[in-house]
């Protein structure tokens, strides 16, 4: 992988609007996500962070009454257009949620391969290989290799979240969306997942929502600050946290509102 590739835009969001039953939640967001980087989204509660990343895998439109407008370009295609099948799209754009949600009636193994079995992969040897590889990627293999057939819900919260990361990675998505993936976890699990994110960006492009500004500062390359459904500022993380251009950004990162 060379440096020019590292600078390439993978996801290009142009003038994205989203609403819930007529009430606008996003007002024209435009930003570019660079391949194999970590992009953090910060902002006060209710500013539209979740709505934003749920537009990127078109999960937003599954909410009754929700609408989306604008364009999101990936691989030369506007993924919001009507002729893109959301089901196929979601194999390219994985997601990890705020609350760990491994399928409770499935084993650890079945959870990891859930996406592959949906895609019709049945060969045991292939599945075994993927399980070992992705659990290693998610830094969980050593802890679970002897109990792959135990229920996913038997793990600790932090382990469950890494299992969910493995589940998302197993179908080799181009982009991994993470909505406050550590907000339900203890500091040690959080540190592990932050470390993991740093390693994962070699494999996948990450967009992460976080409430924790230190976390954004530690792990991301670029940060966007959202306020009331608008993108106030989007720039290199080091710049945003040291020399923000917008006074609202400055007030937020110095903890004066939100």
């Amino acid at each position, binding site marked *: 992988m060379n440096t020019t590739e590292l600078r390439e835009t993978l996801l290009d969001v142009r003038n994205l609007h989203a609403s819930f039953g007529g009430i606008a939640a996003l007002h024209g967001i435009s930003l570019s996500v660079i391949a194999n980087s970590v992009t953090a989204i910060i902002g006060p509660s209710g500013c539209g962070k979740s709505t934003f990343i749920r537009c990127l895998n078109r999960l937003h439109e*599954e909410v009754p009454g929700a609408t989306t407008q604008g364009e999101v370009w990936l691989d030369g295609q506007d993924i919001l257009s009507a002729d893109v099948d959301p089901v*196929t799209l*979601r194999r390219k754009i994985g997601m990890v*949620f705020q609350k760990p949600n491994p*399928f409770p*009636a499935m084993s650890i193994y079945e959870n990891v391969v*859930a*996406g592959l079995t949906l895609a019709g992969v049945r060969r045991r040897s292939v599945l075994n290989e993927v399980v070992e590889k992705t659990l290693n990627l998610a830094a969980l293999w050593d802890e679970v290799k002897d109990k792959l057939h135990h229920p996913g819900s038997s793990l600790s919260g932090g382990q469950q979240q890494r299992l969910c990361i493995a589940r*998302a990675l197993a179908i080799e998505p181009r982009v991994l969306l993470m909505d406050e993936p550590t907000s339900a976890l203890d500091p040690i699990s959080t540190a592990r997942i932050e470390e993991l994110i740093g390693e994962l960006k070699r494999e996948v492009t990450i967009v992460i929502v976080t409430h924790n500004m230190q976390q954004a500062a530690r792990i991301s390359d670029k940060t966007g600050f959202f306020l009331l459904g608008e993108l106030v500022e989007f720039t290199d993380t080091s710049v945003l946290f040291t020399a923000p251009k917008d006074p609202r950004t400055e007030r937020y990162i110095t903890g004066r509102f939100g």
Partner: protein
Amino acid sequence: MKIIRKRRDIHHGDRYFYFLLKGLASGLPLLLFLIAAFLLKASWPTINEFGAAFLFTQDWDPVGEHFGVLAFAFGTIVSSLIAIAIGAPLSIFTALFLTELASSRVAKVAGFLVEMLAAIPSVVYGLWGIFVLAPILRIHVEPFLGKTLGFLPLFQGPPYGVGMLAAGIVLAIMIIPTITSVSREVFRSVPQSYREAAMALGATRWEVMRIAVLKTGSTGILGAVILGLGRALGETMAVTMVIGNRADISASLFSPAQTMSSVIANEYAEATSATHVAALLEIGLVLFLLTFIVNSLARVFVWRASLGRSAR
């Protein structure tokens, strides 16, 4: 002073109410026990006389005083299993449709109508079975099944209309409300986050239902089905009217049969010998134990399903 007195009165009222409730709450299980004890005592003559043979013989001869429950147990169990085979998939898919696909208005109306099925008196189902279902089975369905699937023993023999198949179908309709409403509760209690997890992995609508809803709810669904089974096992009136009342053990679903509850309903009035009465009561005891076990099992599954989730 006055205010305090008033408070005390309320307090006393509470105490009486508490004792009343406590009495009722402990009285009801006692009632269950008393019924079991009564059945045991009343059927003691035949338990004593026939022992385990009562359970494993199919002779039913009030004149010669030979009694065995096997044919009736067969009728009860097979008609209930037919009911489950037909009713469970229908109910589960109805519940799935109502919770996952239907708009909330449609779900409300359709859900209400399905639950109204439970309000129809059993004897009305019986009448419908005799005058509508049985003729259709005799004239159309059974001859057709005999022609197409007649190589299976299940579908051989003359089409009577009334019989095992008719009883199974009527029971299926009667247990649909139970299984549907319990399954709906089970599906509704599946957290949205599992559905979203499945969608985010590229699951189609049906796949979301399969891996996130049905699979997560499987224990609860099993409970719902067993609850339906419990209801089918004990149903008397409608079955008595459509099953044909012949104590046969036949492989054919077309042939008449008889269930434990229908033989009791048919014969208790004319049973004169003490042994005959005791034999009928022993059937009651067997049926009581069977439905008790099945219903307890169902509760355990439904309870485990909801517990598993609230613990998360």
